[in-house]
Structure formats: C-alpha cells, structure tokens
C-alpha cells in the first residue's frame, strides 16, 4: 500500500478534522426569522385554500365544519414552532486556512468541504427580510457538477463580506 495517501483503518482513526461537528460555528440565530417568514407564507396560502374549501364544500357534504382548517392550522403552527429554530441550529460552518466546511440538516445531514483553491466565484446576497435583520448569505460556486453552488445563509452582513474577501485572497492557483 502506498503511503502517499494514508488511510487510517476503521475506528482507530485519529480525529480527522480539527473540529468535530458540535464545535463548528453556528449561524446567527435570527436567521430563524427568515425561515419563519417563508414558512408562514406557505402556511397562509395553504390554510387559506383549505379554509375556503372548508367553508364552501364541507357543508354540502354534510360533514362537520372547521376540522380540516383547524388541523392544517395546527400543523403549520407546530412546524413554525419547531422547524426554523432546529434548522438554524443545524447549519454550521468552519473556515480554516485552506478550506471552508459547511454542515446542514438534522435528519439528513450533508457536510461539505470546498478547498479555497477550487472556488470559482462568490456571491453575497440578501433577501428583503435578511436585509432588515442585517444578515447575508454567502454562495460559493465551484466547477463540480455536485455542489455547483454551496450557500451558507444567516451570516452577519459584514462577516459575509469579510469571508468573501478572505476566500478571495486565498484563491491563488488554478489547475486548468
């Protein structure tokens, strides 16, 4: 076995990353409001549709009114209470001297590493709500088919710009 690319055997592996998932930097908790807002829009639309159907159709069928609307409203309320804060907690990142690591998701987790030398270009973007909260998202574009664009949301705007600068300064060489 060639030693250039040492693969430590199973389970006896030394800590492969300087930071275990729990020690990655979390994003700003107020990003939850952005998620809540977009979730609320979905909730309002679907609840409105169900409520209209409830008011117009259900009486004709002779079924008790209001149950469907109540259920859907309860469902969305539950979602609004649980999801955004959990999702925000699940998005974490770490910038080292040569790569950025972004981890997201709680049931299905995806943990991405992009070395700075592989970054093609960078976007810093802001939606309306993000702007009012002083937050920005950093999007990293690579030339791979997977991870064409990796987005890290919920960063303090000044931090997002600083990170953009840092990564840009680290882009030193190109391979092709």
């Amino acid at each position: 076995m060639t030693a250039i690319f040492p693969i430590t055997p199973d389970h006896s592996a030394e800590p492969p990353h300087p930071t275990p998932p729990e020690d990655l930097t979390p994003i700003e908790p107020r990003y939850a409001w952005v998620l809540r807002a977009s979730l609320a829009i979905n909730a309002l639309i679907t609840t409105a549709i169900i409520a209209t159907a409830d008011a117009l159709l259900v009486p004709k069928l002779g079924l008790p009114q209001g149950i469907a609307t109540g259920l859907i409203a309860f469902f969305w309320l539950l979602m609004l209470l649980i999801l955004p804060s959990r999702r925000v907690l699940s998005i974490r990142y770490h910038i080292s001297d040569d790569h950025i690591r972004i981890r997201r998701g709680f049931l299905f987790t995806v943990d991405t590493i992009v070395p700075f030398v592989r970054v093609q270009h960078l976007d810093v973007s802001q939606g309306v709500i993000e702007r009012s909260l002083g937050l920005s998202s950093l999007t990293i574009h690579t030339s791979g088919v997977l991870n064409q664009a990796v987005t890290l949301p919920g960063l303090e705007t000044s931090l997002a710009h600083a990170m953009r600068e840092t990564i840009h300064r680290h882009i030193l060489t190109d391979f092709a």
Partner: protein
Amino acid sequence: MSDPFLLPVTPPKPAPPADAADAPSEDSGAWQRQHISALFLGLLRFGRSLFNLIPAVAALGLSGNSRYIPFAIAGYFLLHIGGVLSHWLFTLYRIGPDSLSIRHGLFSRNERHIGFDRVQDISIEQGLLPRLLGVARISIETGAGSGEDVTLFPIKMEKAEALRETLRAYREQARPLAEAQDSADELSSTPSTPPASSDDSRLLFALPPRKLLLSGVFSPSLAVIALLGALIGFADRFEPFGLNIPSERELIAMIEAYVGSNIFQQNSSPRSIALVIAPLLLAIAALSLITGIIRTIFRDWDYRLSREPRTLRRLRGLTTRTDVAITIRRVQSATLVTGLIRQIFGWQELRLRSLASDIGSGEGGGDHQIIPFAQREEIDPILEEIGLLPNWEAVEWQRSHGILALPSFFTLILFAASAASFSIPAANSWGWPLFGAAILLLLIEILTARRHFHGVDGDKILIRSGLFRPSLTILPRRAIQSADISDNFLYRRLGLASLAFGVPGISSHADDRIPAISLSKATALRAAIFHRD
C-alpha cells in the same frame, strides 16, 4: 513523459498589473452603472415584450371589456419602464485591481465577486443597434458549473475592451508559461500546428476487423424489437410497393398453419405455445444480434486512437467518420465499463470525462468513448499515457454496507404484498409468477448493493459499482472540487455515511459517490484528499 496531472506549481500571487493604471483608470475601483443607453434599448424591447400581453388583451376583448385594453397596455408599459429603470439604477459593477464585482437588486441584493485569475473566457458581442450607440455586451465565464457567469449590457465598447485588456494582462502575469501555451493550444484546436516530428502523433489503439465483429456480437441491439412491434401495428394499413404485409390475424393463421393446430384457442397446451414462442424468441435474438453487429460496424469501423502532443485523438466510423480530440489536461476521470457477460471474457470499454471545451464533442463535453472494446492489458497503457493508471495489485477494495438494498427492499415487499393480495399465489395462476418476480427483483437489488466497492491508490480514488453494467471510475484527486459527507438518521445509528465528490463535467458513466461506508473512514478519506492541498 512526466505526469501531466500533477498540480502546477503554485504561482506567486501576482501584483496588480502595472498597466492597470493606464487602463480605464478613472473608474477603476469605483462602483459604476451600465451605460445609460440601457434605458433606450430597454424601451425598444417593449415592442417584443408586448407579445406577453396578447392573452390578456384577447381575454379582455372576448369578454366584452375591450375598453380596458388601452389601460392594460399603458399599465404594462409603466411596469416595463419601471423594470428597465430599476434594473439600470440598481445594477452596479466595480473593477478592482484583481477582481470584478457586480451588484444587483433593490429589495433583495446579490453581489457577485469574480477573481481575475478564475476567468476562463471573456466575450464581447455587439448587435447592430448597440454598434450604432457604441455599446456592447460583455460576458465572462469562470468555469463554474453553470455556464455564463456574468453579463454586462450595455457597456461602452471602450470599457469592454479595456476590461478584456486588463484581464489579459493579469493572466499573462499570473499564469505560468505552460498554461499560456496550453490556452494558445486550445485556441488553435485543430491540429494546425505542424507536428515537429513523426512520433508527435502515435497510434495507441486500433480495432482490427475481427475484434470489431466480436465487439458487435457483445452489443446486441434491442431496437429491433421495437421495430418489429411497430411494423406489426402498422401492417394493417400499410402496403409498401404493393406488398401485402400480413396483419395480426393473418399472421396468427400462418403460424397455426405452420404448427398444425389452432394453438391460439382457449385450450392450447403449454407445449404448443412453447413451439411458437421459442422460434419467435430465437428469431428476435438473431435479429438483435445482427443489427447490433451492423450498428457496431458502422460506428466503430477503422477505430483509431492516437496520441498527439497535448491531446488524444479518436477517429471512427464507416459512413460518418468522426474525429474527436480530447485535451489530456482537461481529462477529469476515467471509467471502465463492461457488461454482465462481457466481463466474464474480460472485455471492457474505456471512457474519459472531460471539461466542456473539447473539439468535436458535439454534446458540449462530458463523456468520451476512448476505447470501445479491449482487454485490460490494452487499456492499461492508455491509462498510463494520461496518468490515470492505478497500481491494480496495491488497491484494497472495500465494500459498502449492505444497508444500500434497504429502500428497494421495502418497495419490493410492498410489490410482493400487493401481488399476493391481488391474487393469492395458491389460488391464482398469476400469483406465483408475480411473487417470483418480486423475489427475483429483490435478489437483483441485493446483488447490486453488494457491488459497491471503493479503493484508494496514491492520489487516485477508485469506485466500482453496477451489476448489469459494472463500471470502475478512476478519479484523480486533482479533479475533486468539493466533497460531501452525508448521512441520515438510519446511517447515523449504524455509524455510516456516504462520501460524494464534486467533479467537473457531466458523465452518465462515471460514479462519484461512495455510498454507505463507515463515518470515520469517510472523514479520514476526505481529510486525506484535501489536507495535501
């Protein structure tokens, strides 16, 4: 030949080009808008965008509300003007010493940042009207996965040219000589440069007629079955050149005459059905074999692969002869593909994945067949030629976890259950075949899941997968742009994770994913890939 795949030595970060000062110095560094003629050109676009309004106008007219039509058009016009104006007002760009930034948007904002050293392609385009106004469209590409990355329109022609000049100057300073040569090479893509010596182009692989025939035997074409089906359906109404192609009923009568009994009646014995089905299947098999051979001969006739200074060149075809050149530096990965039966005899196909800008690739890069049909001993030298030959003996293959079969296991359980509930196997003659089919599919799924392997050799990652079409992907470390480790609640419980790589170039054959390996192994592998950078 030294390994062309080693990363180029990191060039020192270049100082901002000296002549950047006498480029468009008055604006460099400041945020600026696109040319004011955007408003005028946007106004002209209104005519074309009026087409969008046709349905609305028609609806108004038909519903007897035609007096509102002028208001609708006026309102739309105002909207359009507003759009054009705000687009111009809130699109700003800035040319820094080593980067270009573009800012968009009033309510939601996006700021794109492109380093000059990442710019792959810059194009300036000028229509008739913009030409009269002295403005142009400039498009910049960085080689990120998604095509064109930045477009500025309209900007003054001088500014566009100055930007291109700045970029060119920057590149010349930044790039090592070899890269400059390489890009010059790409410009004159066809072998217009006269070969210096005769061994500048040497034959690596050729397909002699005997092997071509054999290759045809191994790739039967199923197209013939579809063709037959279509013909039978067509035959009732179609009499080409006065020939009477038998209709289904006539065909049945003919078959019955041939077998000597009316086998399509209710109470036909299995034996008499087999008597008809067997020759029919044989005929279809023979036909698909023959069409496969013919197709292969037409496609791969006089197949030649030769090595030229920077490219691999492939010539093939009997009637349509194609000539494809693949720049070796741009090769991202190699994939060996074989078949269920083909692998027993050791026959394999070699494909390379390349970046988009190769010549003659037609479909815009991606996958290229390099060798259609050869044994490992013939393929190895070519892998060596492009620096992708692994040390086969040293590779330790590791199998992915069998949990991979679980999702299809559940669907097949459902399938079998529904088969059983529709027709109880013991009672109905269709019950057992359905149940058997479910079990067979399940077996196939389990076997497929057990076919996922990965191995590591030096800085190459090898990924094997597939049952009916086994493939082996050789992925050099330098092609890996990013890596994902993903897991879910089930995998976490078992300490498993999947490792997936971001590699440039779309390929339908390459496999960039190592599914269901232990989390510690996945993290260690990823760390080893990136920490040497």
